[in-house]
């Protein structure tokens, strides 16, 4: 058995919060193991920031490597101490059957304030009974609070692993609508599909009709699966797009034989993408929020 996410979180907190706060948390974790989600648990969840503070965990590269090893795709680089504390509480809740567990989680989500919701959605990939949380994840994608949306959509392996095609496609579209960086969606390439490519091209058309810019990231999930119907749009961007958009199309089309002919006149651009090792995060543009 390797190191668990819970033991990592506990060790990180032990190094970062004061002893009184740590004692409080560990007591609450013990109570949670015994009594599950009762009134005391709900109070502990809400008051976590008051007890442990809200500082960033500020994890080292080694910590992050351990996190990824404990659970693929576990990316706590931007987590805060209260989020870690809330996750530990959540992981202490005893689980025997999926359905009662989901109902218990529903209670937590119903009760949660903005900060709690972010912590809960972030923690989803660490929870037992992964199959049981798909509806909940889809609900997070529907949130009007961008911070909550991003807690499930970005730096979180759960959607790519568990959401069905329709739900995942909505997540991608919403990232573009909200300006959330697509390159932070875990395993996004693996979930590319032709329905999504069509939806994305339709969206590009809407933006063009309104004379509004199209994010270069949009093409990422078009290029790799493009068929006949998408080639015209890709060609339009190669011909008339901004520099970043054109680089994006080249990067996106890599490995798709259907686009070989389309790219032939753009050898210099293709070489540039290779030689400069252009990445999606560069093309997404500078965004201090993330």
């Amino acid at each position: 058995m390797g190191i668990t996410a819970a033991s990592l979180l506990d060790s990180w907190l032990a190094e970062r919060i004061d002893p009184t706060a740590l004692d409080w948390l560990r007591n609450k974790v013990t109570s949670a193991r015994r009594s599950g989600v009762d009134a005391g648990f709900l109070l502990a969840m809400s008051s976590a920031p008051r007890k442990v503070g809200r500082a960033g965990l500020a994890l080292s590269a080694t910590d992050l490597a351990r996190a990824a090893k404990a659970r693929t795709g576990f990316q706590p680089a931007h987590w805060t101490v209260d989020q870690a504390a809330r996750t530990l509480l959540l992981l202490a809740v005893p689980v025997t059957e999926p359905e009662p567990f989901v109902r218990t989680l529903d209670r937590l989500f119903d009760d949660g304030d903005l900060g709690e919701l972010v912590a809960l959605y972030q923690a989803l990939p660490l929870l037992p009974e992964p199959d049981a949380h798909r509806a909940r994840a889809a609900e997070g994608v529907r949130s009007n609070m961008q911070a909550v949306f991003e807690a499930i959509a970005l730096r979180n392996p759960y959607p790519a692993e568990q959401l069905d095609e329709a739900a995942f496609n909505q997540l991608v579209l919403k990232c573009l609508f909200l300006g959330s960086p697509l390159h932070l969606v875990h395993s996004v390439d693996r979930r590319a599909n032709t329905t999504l490519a069509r939806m994305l091209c339709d969206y590009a058309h809407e933006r063009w009709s309104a004379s509004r810019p199209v994010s270069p990231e949009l093409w990422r999930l078009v290029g790799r699966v493009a068929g006949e119907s998408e080639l015209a749009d890709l060609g339009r961007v190669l011909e008339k797009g901004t520099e970043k958009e054109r680089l994006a199309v080249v990067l996106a089309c890599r490995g798709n034989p259907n686009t070989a002919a389309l790219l032939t006149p753009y050898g210099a651009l293709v070489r540039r993408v290779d030689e400069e090792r252009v990445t999606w995060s560069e093309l997404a543009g500078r965004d201090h929020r993330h």
Partner: protein
Amino acid sequence: MFIDPHIHMQARTTDDYEAMAKAGVVAVLEPAFWVGQPRTNVGAFQHYFSSLVGWERFRAAQFGIRHYCMIGLNAKEANNVELTRDVLTELVPRYVGKEGVVAVGEIGFDDITEAEEKAFRAQLAIAKELDMPVCVHTPHRDKKRGTSRSMDIAIEHGIEPGKVVIDHNNEETVKEVLDRGFWAAFTIYPKTKMGNERMVAIVKQYGSTRVMVDSSADWGVSDPLAVPKTARLMKELGIAEESIREACYSNALRAYGQSGQIKETDWTSPATVDQRTLFEGNSVLRGQEPRIEEPGERRAGVVIE
């Protein structure tokens, strides 16, 4: 910089947030209240409390305004005795400890009934136990007597006057409130009840110690810019800078800061990006270039999408 320590943002549109941000409002405090017509079940209260600590907080942040709230069962709906019992035992204790909740409020009297008094006392007990500030709504009808009684009851429950904000004061109530050591908040209405000029007169007479101004802007005819406008009028009519700052900013911070849930640094030096709320700070306030090319494009992101 201004603080509006009593405003019902749930009733207001994003136009108001934009105008408030532009006028220099950095923080809003939203007490829990009724929503026009009486709620009929506990779920409606839970939904409301949830949105005070969730959606509304997020919405305000998109305009560079920090949002805090108060949790409580309001005076009017305390008259639904059965519902009151559930709200007070199930919900208020749970929500009052959440992040950004600065007080138990707004509680007190509306018609001055027995049921209202019972709920008022129960919530004063909660506030006492958790050592939280209290925001007291004073009735619009029979105000002088209701205000006096509210203070008597607060003292009876062993609550320090310095932890209690008595709101919706007027010329008839102010002296007793200040004499007895409570904070005196004044709601500036555009047409009825207390107005700007009368407020200036009050500050000229009583000074600004423990005095604060708010808009209580809600679904009715009200002005979310009441605080900055009153500040401007105070300046025009010769009130000292320091008094204006107290009445329109620092007293609110001091009174509700006792909760530990609101600090000046929340808006003067937030973390570059507050991941929780995607709060970006008021770029006008901080003298920075707005991050977005087109003004208002960020605001366009707040759509019910």
